[in-house]
């Protein structure tokens, strides 16, 4: 029905976006239809109210701090820059437990390596003084390698 079509135009599209041809159709129709005339009038008032509200909101936004966006961006950039410096500290704190266990393991190995084998020290010292074993002194009969008396005594 034509009435519904007129109202559908009003409800489907913002009043400011209604085309010129549709507007002519509306004006022509409301000349004869009181209901649609009231609907069009209400749509016009509604559009006016919304625009005035938007204008007031825009005016209020102009009174806001003009440097707000600048400050937010500056704070963001600062945060991004400091993220690189602090990333190592964050990494350290996150891996602290692992590092601590590795240190403890290393310490234990050092103890086992340098402190534990204390009983072998005497044998090593003797070996340095007496390079020849008993068997090598007795059995080595190589004439070209005469064993001295000192060597015999030390082997005994």
């Amino acid at each position: 029905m034509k009435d519904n079509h007129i109202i559908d135009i009003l409800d489907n599209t913002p009043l400011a976006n209604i085309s010129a041809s549709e507007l002519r159709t509306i004006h022509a129709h409301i000349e004869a239809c009181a209901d649609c005339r009231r609907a069009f009038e209400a749509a016009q008032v509604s559009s006016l109210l919304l625009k005035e509200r938007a204008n007031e909101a825009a005016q209020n936004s102009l009174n806001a701090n003009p440097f707000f966006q600048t400050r937010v961006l500056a704070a963001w950039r600062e945060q991004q820059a400091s993220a690189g410096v602090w990333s190592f500290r964050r990494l350290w704190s996150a891996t602290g437990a692992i590092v601590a266990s590795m240190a403890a393991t290393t310490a234990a190995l050092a103890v086992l390596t340098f402190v534990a084998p204390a009983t072998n020290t005497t044998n090593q010292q003797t070996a340095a003084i007496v390079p020849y074993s008993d068997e090598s002194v007795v059995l080595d009969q190589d004439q070209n390698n005469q064993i001295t008396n000192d060597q015999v005594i030390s082997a005994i």
Partner: protein
Amino acid sequence: MKAFAQMKSFAGRGSMEGWLTRIATNTCLNILRAAKRRPELVTSDLAENETEWLERVSDSSRTKPLDAEQKVIAADLAERLLETLPAEDRLALTMMDGEGASVLEVAEVTGWSESKVKVRAFRARQKAREALEKLLGHRG
């Protein structure tokens, strides 16, 4: 404050302005949803100056620009009318009819589909128009 607190979520995709707009829109939408909707606006709810405003604006002198006082009354009346609408309908109507945003722009800001934007705006226009028809029909 919300934007600053959620700064890490801004991965640099798109503009800062679009990101901030999205946060502001969703924040406002949540507030509107939480707020209690007022029942239908009726003539007895109107102040005297609002009734006079409706009478003045509905006659043939509508083409004349509004003075400062009339603009304030209009903005307040619009706010009260919008309070009777569901939050999403209100948002669609405000952005499209008040701020001149396109369907695509509203869809991008809200994350809705274009169909949903159109449906919300249609319902909102219909309700606003019907409410004003009743108010204008009862003027003296």
